[in-house]
Protein backbone atom coordinates (compact mmCIF):
# COMPACT_ATOMS: atom_id res chain seq x y z
CA UNK A 1 0.00 0.00 0.00
CA UNK A 2 1.40 3.31 -0.82
CA UNK A 3 -1.34 5.76 0.15
CA UNK A 4 -5.01 6.08 1.08
CA UNK A 5 -7.85 7.87 -0.65
CA UNK A 6 -10.90 8.80 1.43
CA UNK A 7 -13.87 7.86 -0.69
CA UNK A 8 -16.80 10.18 0.14
CA UNK A 9 -19.03 7.15 0.49
CA UNK A 10 -16.74 4.36 1.81
CA UNK A 11 -14.12 6.22 3.86
CA UNK A 12 -10.30 5.78 3.73
CA UNK A 13 -9.28 2.95 1.41
CA UNK A 14 -6.04 1.61 -0.12
CA UNK A 15 -5.21 3.22 -3.47
CA UNK A 16 -5.20 -0.28 -5.00
CA UNK A 17 -9.01 -0.24 -4.76
CA UNK A 18 -9.15 2.71 -7.15
CA UNK A 19 -8.55 3.10 -10.84
CA UNK A 20 -6.80 6.27 -11.98
CA UNK A 21 -8.83 8.21 -14.55
CA UNK A 22 -6.46 10.99 -15.56
CA UNK A 23 -6.27 14.72 -14.81
CA UNK A 24 -9.39 16.92 -14.95
CA UNK A 25 -9.80 18.64 -18.30
CA UNK A 26 -12.44 20.75 -19.94
CA UNK A 27 -14.00 19.22 -22.99
CA UNK A 28 -13.91 21.33 -26.17
CA UNK A 29 -17.20 22.78 -27.35
CA UNK A 30 -19.07 20.81 -30.03
CA UNK A 31 -17.88 21.90 -33.45
CA UNK A 32 -14.31 22.66 -32.30
CA UNK A 33 -11.66 21.99 -34.93
CA UNK A 34 -9.67 18.76 -35.10
CA UNK A 35 -6.56 20.35 -33.58
CA UNK A 36 -8.56 21.28 -30.49
CA UNK A 37 -9.87 17.72 -30.20
CA UNK A 38 -6.48 16.06 -30.62
CA UNK A 39 -5.00 18.36 -27.96
CA UNK A 40 -7.88 17.37 -25.65
CA UNK A 41 -7.33 13.71 -26.44
CA UNK A 42 -3.54 13.58 -25.99
CA UNK A 43 -1.92 16.63 -24.37
CA UNK A 44 -1.69 16.80 -20.57
CA UNK A 45 -0.40 19.26 -17.96
CA UNK A 46 1.21 16.26 -16.16
CA UNK A 47 2.03 18.59 -13.28
CA UNK A 48 4.77 17.84 -10.74
CA UNK A 49 2.74 19.27 -7.85
CA UNK A 50 -0.93 19.50 -6.92
CA UNK A 51 -2.98 17.56 -9.44
CA UNK A 52 -6.77 17.29 -9.70
CA UNK A 53 -7.71 13.96 -11.22
CA UNK A 54 -10.51 11.49 -11.76
CA UNK A 55 -10.46 8.23 -9.79
CA UNK A 56 -12.92 5.31 -9.96
CA UNK A 57 -13.63 3.32 -6.80
CA UNK A 58 -13.38 0.06 -8.69
CA UNK A 59 -13.33 -2.35 -5.72
CA UNK A 60 -15.71 -0.32 -3.57
CA UNK A 61 -18.84 1.67 -4.37
CA UNK A 62 -17.95 1.83 -8.08
CA UNK A 63 -18.43 5.57 -8.37
CA UNK A 64 -16.22 8.16 -10.04
CA UNK A 65 -14.72 10.80 -7.77
CA UNK A 66 -12.24 13.66 -7.97
CA UNK A 67 -9.04 13.76 -5.93
CA UNK A 68 -6.54 16.50 -5.25
CA UNK A 69 -3.06 15.00 -4.79
CA UNK A 70 0.55 16.17 -4.75
CA UNK A 71 2.13 14.02 -7.46
CA UNK A 72 5.63 14.54 -5.95
CA UNK A 73 4.70 12.95 -2.59
CA UNK A 74 1.32 11.24 -3.25
CA UNK A 75 -0.13 13.27 -0.36
CA UNK A 76 -3.90 13.36 -0.87
CA UNK A 77 -5.75 16.64 -0.30
CA UNK A 78 -9.42 17.28 -0.96
CA UNK A 79 -11.60 14.41 -2.22
CA UNK A 80 -15.12 15.04 -3.55
CA UNK A 81 -17.58 13.88 -6.15
CA UNK A 82 -16.82 17.23 -7.81
CA UNK A 83 -13.95 19.44 -6.65
CA UNK A 84 -15.05 22.54 -8.54
CA UNK A 85 -18.79 23.11 -8.32
CA UNK A 86 -20.38 23.73 -11.65
CA UNK A 87 -17.90 21.76 -13.76
CA UNK A 88 -19.57 18.38 -13.41
CA UNK A 89 -23.11 17.40 -12.43
CA UNK A 90 -23.21 14.88 -9.54
CA UNK A 91 -24.70 11.61 -10.80
Amino acid at each position, binding site marked *: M*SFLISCPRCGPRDVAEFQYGGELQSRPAPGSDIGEWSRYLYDRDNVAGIEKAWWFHRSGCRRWLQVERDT*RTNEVGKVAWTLDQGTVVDG
Partner: protein
Amino acid sequence: MIGPLRRWRVMRPQEQRSGYDVVIVGGGVHGLAIAYELAKRGVRDVAVLEKAYIGAGGSGRNTAIIRSNYRTPEGVAFYDESVRIYERLGVELGFNVLFSQHGHLTLAHTDSAVAGLRVRAEVNQLQGVDSVVVGVDEIRKLAPALDLSDRPRYPIQAALYHPPGGIIRHDAVVWGYARRAAEMGVHVHQGVEVTGIDLAAGRIAGVRTNHGSIRAGTVVNATAGWASTIAAMVGVRLPIVTHPLQALVTEPLKPFLNPVLVSATLHVYVSQTDRGELVIGAEIDPYASYSHRSTLSFMETSVAHVLELLPSVANVRVLRQWAGICDMTPDFSPIIGPVPDVPGFILDVGWGTYGFKAGPVAGRRVAELIATGQTPAVLAPFSIERFATGSLIGEKAAAAVSH
Protein backbone atom coordinates in the same frame (compact mmCIF):
# COMPACT_ATOMS: atom_id res chain seq x y z
CA MET B 1 26.43 7.86 -5.18
CA ILE B 2 29.52 9.16 -6.93
CA GLY B 3 32.12 10.30 -4.40
CA PRO B 4 34.58 13.14 -5.03
CA LEU B 5 37.38 10.79 -6.12
CA ARG B 6 35.25 8.97 -8.62
CA ARG B 7 33.93 12.24 -10.05
CA TRP B 8 37.52 13.26 -10.78
CA ARG B 9 38.37 9.91 -12.26
CA VAL B 10 35.43 9.98 -14.66
CA MET B 11 35.84 13.59 -15.77
CA ARG B 12 37.33 16.91 -14.68
CA PRO B 13 35.06 19.72 -13.43
CA GLN B 14 34.72 22.56 -15.95
CA GLU B 15 34.06 26.29 -15.64
CA GLN B 16 30.51 27.16 -16.74
CA ARG B 17 30.52 29.58 -19.69
CA SER B 18 27.94 32.31 -20.27
CA GLY B 19 26.78 30.79 -23.53
CA TYR B 20 26.94 27.62 -25.66
CA ASP B 21 25.73 26.72 -29.14
CA VAL B 22 23.76 23.80 -27.74
CA VAL B 23 22.48 23.26 -24.20
CA ILE B 24 21.23 19.76 -23.36
CA VAL B 25 18.93 19.47 -20.36
CA GLY B 26 19.36 16.12 -18.61
CA GLY B 27 22.61 14.25 -17.87
CA GLY B 28 21.43 10.72 -18.55
CA VAL B 29 22.41 8.34 -21.32
CA HIS B 30 20.36 10.30 -23.88
CA GLY B 31 21.72 13.75 -23.07
CA LEU B 32 25.31 12.53 -22.81
CA ALA B 33 25.07 10.44 -25.99
CA ILE B 34 23.75 13.47 -27.89
CA ALA B 35 26.65 15.55 -26.53
CA TYR B 36 29.23 12.92 -27.47
CA GLU B 37 27.80 12.46 -30.98
CA LEU B 38 27.71 16.25 -31.49
CA ALA B 39 31.36 16.44 -30.47
CA LYS B 40 32.17 13.67 -32.97
CA ARG B 41 30.56 15.81 -35.67
CA GLY B 42 32.66 18.81 -34.65
CA VAL B 43 29.96 20.64 -32.68
CA ARG B 44 31.88 21.09 -29.43
CA ASP B 45 30.40 24.25 -27.92
CA VAL B 46 27.95 22.08 -26.00
CA ALA B 47 26.88 21.87 -22.36
CA VAL B 48 24.95 19.12 -20.61
CA LEU B 49 23.07 20.40 -17.55
CA GLU B 50 22.19 17.80 -14.93
CA LYS B 51 20.31 18.88 -11.81
CA ALA B 52 21.65 16.05 -9.63
CA TYR B 53 24.55 13.82 -10.73
CA ILE B 54 24.94 12.10 -14.11
CA GLY B 55 22.83 8.95 -14.36
CA ALA B 56 20.72 9.90 -11.32
CA GLY B 57 17.42 9.44 -13.13
CA GLY B 58 16.16 6.73 -15.42
CA SER B 59 19.66 5.89 -16.68
CA GLY B 60 20.69 4.62 -13.26
CA ARG B 61 17.33 3.14 -12.26
CA ASN B 62 16.40 0.90 -15.18
CA THR B 63 16.91 -2.86 -15.28
CA ALA B 64 19.68 -2.56 -17.92
CA ILE B 65 18.10 -4.80 -20.55
CA ILE B 66 19.10 -4.33 -24.21
CA ARG B 67 17.07 -5.83 -27.09
CA SER B 68 15.56 -5.02 -30.48
CA ASN B 69 12.74 -7.58 -30.90
CA TYR B 70 9.99 -4.96 -31.12
CA ARG B 71 6.62 -5.24 -32.82
CA THR B 72 6.49 -2.35 -35.31
CA PRO B 73 8.95 -1.90 -38.21
CA GLU B 74 9.71 1.64 -36.96
CA GLY B 75 10.56 0.32 -33.52
CA VAL B 76 12.66 -2.59 -34.79
CA ALA B 77 14.76 -0.34 -37.06
CA PHE B 78 15.42 2.03 -34.22
CA TYR B 79 16.35 -0.45 -31.49
CA ASP B 80 18.36 -2.65 -33.87
CA GLU B 81 20.66 0.27 -34.61
CA SER B 82 20.94 0.82 -30.86
CA VAL B 83 21.95 -2.79 -30.17
CA ARG B 84 24.62 -2.53 -32.88
CA ILE B 85 26.05 0.62 -31.30
CA TYR B 86 25.96 -0.98 -27.85
CA GLU B 87 27.91 -3.97 -29.20
CA ARG B 88 30.83 -1.66 -30.06
CA LEU B 89 30.34 0.96 -27.38
CA GLY B 90 33.06 -0.23 -25.01
CA VAL B 91 35.67 0.03 -27.79
CA GLU B 92 34.31 3.33 -29.06
CA LEU B 93 34.30 5.05 -25.67
CA GLY B 94 37.37 3.34 -24.23
CA PHE B 95 35.28 2.37 -21.19
CA ASN B 96 34.14 -1.16 -20.33
CA VAL B 97 30.34 -1.15 -20.35
CA LEU B 98 30.09 -4.89 -19.52
CA PHE B 99 27.55 -5.76 -22.22
CA SER B 100 26.58 -9.44 -21.79
CA GLN B 101 24.53 -10.75 -24.71
CA HIS B 102 23.02 -13.69 -22.84
CA GLY B 103 19.88 -13.78 -24.97
CA HIS B 104 16.34 -12.69 -24.24
CA LEU B 105 13.24 -14.91 -23.85
CA THR B 106 9.75 -13.41 -24.04
CA LEU B 107 7.45 -16.06 -22.58
CA ALA B 108 3.94 -16.73 -23.85
CA HIS B 109 1.38 -18.37 -21.56
CA THR B 110 -1.72 -18.05 -23.77
CA ASP B 111 -2.67 -18.78 -27.38
CA SER B 112 -3.08 -15.07 -28.13
CA ALA B 113 0.37 -14.34 -26.69
CA VAL B 114 1.88 -17.05 -28.92
CA ALA B 115 0.20 -15.42 -31.93
CA GLY B 116 1.66 -12.06 -30.88
CA LEU B 117 5.16 -13.57 -30.67
CA ARG B 118 4.82 -15.03 -34.16
CA VAL B 119 4.02 -11.58 -35.54
CA ARG B 120 7.02 -10.12 -33.76
CA ALA B 121 9.31 -12.90 -35.03
CA GLU B 122 8.19 -12.24 -38.61
CA VAL B 123 8.63 -8.47 -38.32
CA ASN B 124 12.04 -8.97 -36.71
CA GLN B 125 13.31 -11.49 -39.29
CA LEU B 126 12.19 -9.30 -42.21
CA GLN B 127 14.49 -6.60 -40.85
CA GLY B 128 17.39 -8.96 -40.23
CA VAL B 129 17.02 -9.17 -36.45
CA ASP B 130 17.86 -12.55 -34.91
CA SER B 131 14.52 -13.51 -33.34
CA VAL B 132 12.61 -16.81 -33.45
CA VAL B 133 9.66 -18.52 -31.73
CA VAL B 134 10.81 -21.57 -29.74
CA GLY B 135 8.85 -24.36 -28.06
CA VAL B 136 9.04 -25.77 -24.56
CA ASP B 137 11.89 -28.25 -25.31
CA GLU B 138 14.10 -25.47 -26.63
CA ILE B 139 13.19 -23.19 -23.70
CA ARG B 140 14.21 -25.96 -21.27
CA LYS B 141 17.69 -26.05 -22.85
CA LEU B 142 18.04 -22.26 -22.67
CA ALA B 143 16.70 -21.81 -19.12
CA PRO B 144 16.54 -25.09 -17.17
CA ALA B 145 15.45 -23.28 -13.99
CA LEU B 146 12.09 -22.31 -15.52
CA ASP B 147 9.01 -24.20 -14.36
CA LEU B 148 7.79 -25.63 -17.68
CA SER B 149 5.31 -28.07 -16.13
CA ASP B 150 1.52 -27.79 -16.07
CA ARG B 151 1.62 -26.78 -12.39
CA PRO B 152 1.42 -22.96 -12.81
CA ARG B 153 -1.94 -21.26 -13.38
CA TYR B 154 -0.68 -20.16 -16.82
CA PRO B 155 1.78 -22.79 -18.11
CA ILE B 156 4.47 -21.59 -20.54
CA GLN B 157 3.57 -22.51 -24.13
CA ALA B 158 6.30 -20.90 -26.21
CA ALA B 159 8.80 -18.06 -26.22
CA LEU B 160 10.34 -15.49 -28.52
CA TYR B 161 14.09 -16.12 -28.42
CA HIS B 162 16.29 -13.13 -29.23
CA PRO B 163 19.98 -14.15 -28.93
CA PRO B 164 21.53 -10.63 -29.24
CA GLY B 165 19.50 -9.36 -26.26
CA GLY B 166 21.15 -9.06 -22.89
CA ILE B 167 22.11 -6.83 -20.02
CA ILE B 168 24.69 -4.10 -19.59
CA ARG B 169 26.22 -2.06 -16.75
CA HIS B 170 24.07 1.05 -17.05
CA ASP B 171 26.23 3.32 -14.86
CA ALA B 172 29.24 2.48 -17.01
CA VAL B 173 27.38 3.57 -20.14
CA VAL B 174 26.65 6.95 -18.55
CA TRP B 175 30.20 7.43 -17.24
CA GLY B 176 31.75 6.27 -20.51
CA TYR B 177 29.76 8.76 -22.57
CA ALA B 178 30.36 11.59 -20.09
CA ARG B 179 34.11 11.04 -19.90
CA ARG B 180 34.62 10.72 -23.64
CA ALA B 181 32.39 13.73 -24.38
CA ALA B 182 34.26 15.81 -21.79
CA GLU B 183 37.62 14.78 -23.31
CA MET B 184 36.34 16.06 -26.65
CA GLY B 185 35.51 19.48 -25.21
CA VAL B 186 31.88 19.14 -24.13
CA HIS B 187 30.97 20.62 -20.75
CA VAL B 188 29.04 18.44 -18.30
CA HIS B 189 27.70 20.49 -15.38
CA GLN B 190 26.27 18.51 -12.47
CA GLY B 191 24.09 20.10 -9.81
CA VAL B 192 22.83 22.67 -12.33
CA GLU B 193 19.02 22.76 -12.50
CA VAL B 194 17.19 24.52 -15.33
CA THR B 195 14.53 26.79 -13.84
CA GLY B 196 13.37 28.58 -16.99
CA ILE B 197 13.93 28.90 -20.73
CA ASP B 198 14.27 32.30 -22.43
CA LEU B 199 12.76 33.09 -25.80
CA ALA B 200 13.62 36.00 -28.08
CA ALA B 201 11.30 36.73 -31.00
CA GLY B 202 9.75 33.29 -30.59
CA ARG B 203 13.12 31.50 -30.78
CA ILE B 204 15.13 29.81 -28.07
CA ALA B 205 17.61 32.30 -26.58
CA GLY B 206 18.94 30.52 -23.50
CA VAL B 207 18.20 28.88 -20.18
CA ARG B 208 17.99 30.13 -16.61
CA THR B 209 19.49 27.89 -13.95
CA ASN B 210 20.25 27.84 -10.24
CA HIS B 211 23.84 28.72 -11.32
CA GLY B 212 22.97 31.73 -13.49
CA SER B 213 21.74 32.21 -17.04
CA ILE B 214 23.26 30.57 -20.11
CA ARG B 215 22.76 31.79 -23.69
CA ALA B 216 22.02 29.10 -26.27
CA GLY B 217 20.46 28.96 -29.71
CA THR B 218 19.45 25.32 -29.32
CA VAL B 219 18.06 23.67 -26.21
CA VAL B 220 17.49 19.91 -26.13
CA ASN B 221 14.96 18.48 -23.68
CA ALA B 222 16.55 15.11 -22.88
CA THR B 223 14.92 14.62 -19.51
CA ALA B 224 12.98 11.61 -18.28
CA GLY B 225 10.31 12.20 -15.69
CA TRP B 226 10.57 15.97 -16.16
CA ALA B 227 9.82 16.29 -19.88
CA SER B 228 6.46 18.00 -19.28
CA THR B 229 7.99 20.39 -16.71
CA ILE B 230 10.79 21.50 -19.07
CA ALA B 231 8.43 21.76 -22.08
CA ALA B 232 6.01 23.88 -20.03
CA MET B 233 8.82 26.47 -19.69
CA VAL B 234 8.33 27.28 -23.39
CA GLY B 235 4.55 26.87 -23.23
CA VAL B 236 4.46 23.44 -24.89
CA ARG B 237 2.05 20.79 -23.58
CA LEU B 238 3.15 17.23 -24.29
CA PRO B 239 1.07 14.06 -24.67
CA ILE B 240 2.88 12.57 -21.67
CA VAL B 241 1.80 11.20 -18.30
CA THR B 242 4.54 10.42 -15.78
CA HIS B 243 4.32 7.11 -13.90
CA PRO B 244 6.71 5.42 -11.45
CA LEU B 245 8.22 2.07 -12.35
CA GLN B 246 9.60 -0.12 -9.61
CA ALA B 247 12.32 -2.74 -9.50
CA LEU B 248 14.04 -4.88 -6.91
CA VAL B 249 17.21 -6.90 -6.58
CA THR B 250 17.98 -10.06 -4.61
CA GLU B 251 21.12 -11.25 -2.87
CA PRO B 252 23.73 -12.76 -5.24
CA LEU B 253 23.42 -16.40 -6.30
CA LYS B 254 25.67 -18.70 -8.30
CA PRO B 255 25.06 -18.22 -12.03
CA PHE B 256 22.00 -20.31 -12.98
CA LEU B 257 19.97 -18.09 -15.32
CA ASN B 258 21.42 -17.19 -18.69
CA PRO B 259 18.77 -15.38 -20.73
CA VAL B 260 16.66 -12.42 -19.64
CA LEU B 261 13.13 -13.69 -18.91
CA VAL B 262 10.04 -11.61 -19.67
CA SER B 263 6.43 -12.51 -19.13
CA ALA B 264 3.74 -10.07 -20.20
CA THR B 265 1.02 -12.31 -18.74
CA LEU B 266 2.66 -12.23 -15.32
CA HIS B 267 3.75 -8.56 -15.63
CA VAL B 268 7.32 -9.32 -14.67
CA TYR B 269 10.84 -9.57 -16.06
CA VAL B 270 13.90 -11.04 -14.42
CA SER B 271 17.58 -11.34 -15.24
CA GLN B 272 20.71 -12.46 -13.39
CA THR B 273 23.51 -9.91 -13.32
CA ASP B 274 27.18 -10.68 -13.74
CA ARG B 275 27.47 -10.40 -9.95
CA GLY B 276 24.73 -13.03 -9.49
CA GLU B 277 21.85 -10.89 -8.23
CA LEU B 278 18.40 -11.34 -9.71
CA VAL B 279 17.07 -8.03 -11.00
CA ILE B 280 13.28 -8.02 -11.14
CA GLY B 281 11.05 -5.38 -12.64
CA ALA B 282 7.38 -4.95 -13.39
CA GLU B 283 4.82 -2.78 -15.09
CA ILE B 284 4.49 0.92 -14.25
CA ASP B 285 2.42 1.90 -11.22
CA PRO B 286 -1.14 2.47 -12.49
CA TYR B 287 -1.39 6.19 -11.64
CA ALA B 288 0.52 9.36 -12.47
CA SER B 289 3.18 10.25 -9.91
CA TYR B 290 6.66 11.73 -9.56
CA SER B 291 7.30 9.88 -6.29
CA HIS B 292 10.39 7.67 -6.01
CA ARG B 293 9.01 5.69 -3.06
CA SER B 294 8.70 1.92 -3.39
CA THR B 295 5.63 0.01 -2.30
CA LEU B 296 5.11 -3.32 -0.57
CA SER B 297 2.34 -4.27 -2.99
CA PHE B 298 4.82 -4.09 -5.88
CA MET B 299 7.26 -6.38 -4.10
CA GLU B 300 4.56 -8.89 -3.10
CA THR B 301 3.07 -9.24 -6.57
CA SER B 302 6.38 -9.22 -8.47
CA VAL B 303 7.96 -11.80 -6.21
CA ALA B 304 4.87 -14.01 -6.44
CA HIS B 305 5.06 -13.85 -10.22
CA VAL B 306 8.77 -14.65 -10.30
CA LEU B 307 8.06 -17.72 -8.16
CA GLU B 308 5.56 -18.88 -10.79
CA LEU B 309 8.46 -18.86 -13.26
CA LEU B 310 11.38 -19.87 -11.02
CA PRO B 311 10.06 -21.79 -7.98
CA SER B 312 13.61 -22.68 -6.89
CA VAL B 313 14.38 -19.12 -5.74
CA ALA B 314 11.71 -19.22 -3.00
CA ASN B 315 14.22 -18.79 -0.16
CA VAL B 316 16.30 -16.04 -1.77
CA ARG B 317 16.24 -12.71 0.07
CA VAL B 318 15.45 -9.35 -1.47
CA LEU B 319 18.27 -6.86 -0.92
CA ARG B 320 16.61 -3.60 -1.95
CA GLN B 321 13.93 -2.07 -4.14
CA TRP B 322 13.66 1.32 -5.83
CA ALA B 323 11.60 3.32 -8.29
CA GLY B 324 12.27 5.43 -11.35
CA ILE B 325 9.86 7.74 -13.11
CA CYS B 326 8.80 7.17 -16.70
CA ASP B 327 7.23 9.55 -19.21
CA MET B 328 4.52 7.49 -20.89
CA THR B 329 3.09 8.44 -24.29
CA PRO B 330 -0.25 7.18 -25.64
CA ASP B 331 1.42 4.91 -28.24
CA PHE B 332 4.35 3.61 -26.16
CA SER B 333 6.81 5.34 -28.46
CA PRO B 334 9.09 8.33 -27.86
CA ILE B 335 8.70 11.92 -29.07
CA ILE B 336 11.82 13.06 -30.92
CA GLY B 337 12.57 16.06 -33.08
CA PRO B 338 11.99 19.80 -33.30
CA VAL B 339 8.86 21.56 -32.05
CA PRO B 340 7.42 23.55 -34.97
CA ASP B 341 6.13 26.43 -32.80
CA VAL B 342 9.41 26.94 -30.92
CA PRO B 343 12.46 27.09 -33.23
CA GLY B 344 15.61 25.88 -31.46
CA PHE B 345 13.75 23.60 -29.03
CA ILE B 346 14.48 19.92 -29.66
CA LEU B 347 12.69 17.03 -27.95
CA ASP B 348 14.14 13.65 -27.05
CA VAL B 349 11.48 12.65 -24.54
CA GLY B 350 8.57 10.32 -23.85
CA TRP B 351 10.88 7.36 -23.50
CA GLY B 352 8.53 5.59 -21.12
CA THR B 353 10.04 2.36 -19.88
CA TYR B 354 12.33 1.72 -22.86
CA GLY B 355 14.63 4.77 -22.97
CA PHE B 356 17.86 3.29 -21.74
CA LYS B 357 18.13 0.66 -24.48
CA ALA B 358 17.67 3.38 -27.11
CA GLY B 359 20.15 5.92 -25.72
CA PRO B 360 23.00 5.44 -28.22
CA VAL B 361 20.85 5.59 -31.36
CA ALA B 362 18.79 8.51 -30.07
CA GLY B 363 22.04 10.31 -29.30
CA ARG B 364 23.48 9.65 -32.74
CA ARG B 365 20.34 10.65 -34.65
CA VAL B 366 19.40 13.68 -32.56
CA ALA B 367 22.99 14.92 -32.97
CA GLU B 368 22.59 14.44 -36.74
CA LEU B 369 19.35 16.42 -36.61
CA ILE B 370 20.99 19.30 -34.70
CA ALA B 371 24.17 19.37 -36.81
CA THR B 372 22.47 19.13 -40.22
CA GLY B 373 19.05 20.66 -39.55
CA GLN B 374 17.51 17.67 -41.35
CA THR B 375 15.36 15.06 -39.61
CA PRO B 376 16.94 11.60 -40.21
CA ALA B 377 14.52 9.04 -41.70
CA VAL B 378 14.67 6.80 -38.65
CA LEU B 379 13.41 9.67 -36.45
CA ALA B 380 10.64 10.90 -38.74
CA PRO B 381 7.88 8.56 -37.44
CA PHE B 382 8.48 9.79 -33.88
CA SER B 383 7.77 13.51 -34.43
CA ILE B 384 5.36 15.34 -32.13
CA GLU B 385 3.13 16.11 -35.13
CA ARG B 386 2.02 12.47 -35.24
CA PHE B 387 -0.54 13.18 -32.52
CA ALA B 388 -2.17 15.98 -34.52
CA THR B 389 -2.28 13.90 -37.71
CA GLY B 390 -3.31 10.65 -35.98
CA SER B 391 -0.22 8.73 -37.17
CA LEU B 392 0.39 6.91 -33.90
CA ILE B 393 2.83 4.00 -33.81
CA GLY B 394 1.24 1.43 -31.46
CA GLU B 395 4.25 -0.23 -29.87
CA LYS B 396 2.26 -1.37 -26.83
CA ALA B 397 2.46 -5.09 -27.64
CA ALA B 398 6.23 -5.06 -27.39
CA ALA B 399 7.05 -2.10 -25.16
CA ALA B 400 4.69 -2.55 -22.23
CA VAL B 401 6.14 -4.81 -19.54
CA SER B 402 8.52 -6.63 -21.85
CA HIS B 403 11.90 -5.15 -21.11
